[in-house]
């Protein structure tokens, strides 16, 4: 893949990710997050992981964010008020962020393969098939367990939200 495109999509992903936090209007935040997901999907696609990229769009940008947007609009949230930032909180935030950033840099510098290019993957199957084989072959049991877990969670939600169930 071409590095220019990588940088463009990385910039889109990160830029709109930042915009999600910076925007005071909740709708604008949600939309920025959706665009950020689209950039992420393009990055996945560029790694030959078309399936994950498209599912990213389908599930996150297409369904989850629409639901978010839906709820934001239904609740009619107003733009967030600007607050006074305390100096101690600011300093604390900068220090923690700096520590985290330096840790990431340290780890990446010692990561042996961090700075040379990988050859493009040549897989025997399309990536959807690979994911299927991995998920339903190697990780079948965890997959089923997670499925049951999600089922239990959704039943729990139904029970909790319908308190007057006889």
């Amino acid at each position: 893949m071409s590095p220019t495109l990588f940088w463009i999509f990385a910039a889109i992903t990160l830029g709109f990710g930042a915009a999600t936090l910076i925007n005071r209007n909740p709708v604008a935040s949600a939309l920025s997050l959706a665009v950020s997901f689209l950039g992420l999907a393009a990055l996945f696609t560029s790694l030959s992981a078309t399936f994950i990229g498209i599912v990213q769009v389908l599930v996150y940008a297409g369904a989850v964010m629409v639901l978010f947007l839906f709820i934001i609009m239904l609740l009619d949230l107003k733009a967030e008020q600007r607050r006074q930032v305390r100096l101690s909180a600011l300093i604390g935030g900068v220090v923690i962020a700096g520590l985290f950033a330096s840790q990431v840099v340290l780890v990446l510098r010692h990561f042996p393969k961090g700075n040379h290019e990988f050859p493009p993957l040549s897989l025997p199957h399309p990536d959807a098939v690979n994911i299927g084989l991995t998920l339903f072959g190697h990780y079948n049991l965890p997959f089923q367990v997670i499925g049951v877990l999600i089922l239990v969670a959704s039943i729990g939600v139904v029970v909790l939200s319908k308190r007057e169930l006889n």
Partner: protein
Amino acid sequence: MNAILQFLHPLIDPASIPFLLWTTLAKSIGLLCIVLVMVSYTVYAERRVSSLIQDRLGPNRTGFPLSLFGNLFGIKWRDWSPILGGLGQPIADAVKLLLKEEFTPAFVKKFYFWIAPGLGIGAAIVSLAVIPFGSKIWGVDMVIANIDIGPLFVFAISSLGVYGIVLAGWSSNSKYPFLGAVRSTSQLISYELSLGLSVVPLFMIVGKLNLVDLVSYQVQNGWMILPGITAAKPHLPGTLGSYLIIVPILISFIVFTIAMFAETNRLPFDLPEGETELVGGYHTEYSSLKFALFFLGEYTAMITGSSFIVTLFLGAWHFPGIPEGGAPSLAGLLLGFVNIGVFFVKVIAFLLFFIAIRWTLPRFRYDQLMKLGWIYFFEIALVNIFLTALILAFVP
């Protein structure tokens, strides 16, 4: 440009890039031209067919030279005008919409109000990229992007179309558009589930998640809902499993078609824009070109939906007796175009079905709509997958 192609197909041979580039460009432009003309004439057909169903005539005046010159060459065009006249109507409509006042109400959220119409039509057009609309012309596949996860791509992009509706309703800052948008969002999200689940059996049968492979499977084994219609093997398959498999396919065809009606906001599922309840739904505050974009987006979505159904269930460009084109000869070239024609004829037939259904069924009540989507279709589609799996696994 080369970078984009390298990006999209990392494994591609750099030498073939210029060829790929101009064929893709030609295919995109060609498909866009066909589809946009089809969109405008779908609007016209909608009006004409609706009128005919209601024992009216519909727009039959705005003609091409036919009705302009009156009795030219001694032929009385007037006798033909109830049938042929009105073919210029889409142009007149377009001119009317272009010349209307571009009005933006004062209290709308301008930015979102302006981008919303584009999102709808953009999503509908982009989904067409993976639809194989023809066999081959001179060895080039008649599909813009032959990717391995075609149906997922269509679902993903068309799910982005919801943003257009949601933003339009919200940014209009008015109650009717908002109600329309809320209805539309919940309807689209609900029916996306059954839409996605109902096609799973097809890909279980074919074993590949690629629309071109699906089409070639149908060419060899007959159309999905009409097995046996094939040029290669003009006899029905013999095994029990191949007969039983028709049941889940029919179920998924019905569920998919109805869910597609809901996804395209067509009657009987047009609650987002129920005129009697919501004035115009999410586009109430829009006028002129912005309204036109919504309008065209809706019809483009109809065409995309029909092409998708045709590709999945009705054998795409295949028709018994018409061989596959693509050989580098004049005959192959012509056959390639004939195949494209067959595809679009099927799409048009399905669009007419869309229109006929519109005047057949009354609008659902909202709770009925949700019940149908969540309680019936979702379950039916899920059970259908199990049924297919059982047949594929245990019946030879």
